[in-house]
């Protein structure tokens, strides 16, 4: 088994864990963490699967660089919303959600 494959498999698990986290966890900061895990999983699959013969491929690597920047942008916006919600309501969960 190649390095690329090992991390592609790990990426598949991470992605599923992240999605499950976003769906199941009510606490919003924790949900942001789960979203980031999901993203990291997708990035690992993108590069790992393309490099399953263990030859570096710059194209998916550049795509992941783009993806990381998009993820941090989304995280910052999510945090701004969470902080605003907390300032307005004192809550760290969304109304009507299943709680932890």
């Amino acid at each position: 088994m190649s390095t690329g494959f090992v991390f592609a498999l790990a990426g598949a698990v991470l992605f599923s864990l992240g999605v499950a986290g976003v769906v199941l966890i009510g606490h919003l900061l924790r949900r942001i963490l789960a979203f980031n895990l999901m993203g990291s999983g997708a990035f690992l699959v993108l590069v790992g699967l393309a490099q399953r013969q263990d030859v570096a491929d710059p194209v998916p690597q550049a795509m992941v660089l783009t993806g990381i920047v998009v993820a941090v942008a989304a995280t910052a916006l999510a945090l701004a919303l969470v902080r605003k919600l907390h300032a307005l309501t004192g809550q760290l969960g969304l109304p009507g959600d299943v709680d932890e």
Partner: protein
Amino acid sequence: MTLAFDLLLALSLLWTAWRTLATPRLDRALVLFIVFGLLMSLAWARLAAPDIGLAEAAIGAGLTGALLLDAYGVLRRRVRP
């Protein structure tokens, strides 16, 4: 040998990720998340992707971690002023 290292690294990634979501204390979860980012940097180095490794350490673990810790600090202070 390298396969063993890769497997170990992949398993630690998954374990850290799981603990990040499952650990009951939020501060510990945030620290674990930053550790996760650093492990990701290592994984990128193993995947011959040093550019992503650098970016992950600086942006993924560094900036995202700082944003999260800052938010955590503010939220905790608000709860008990």
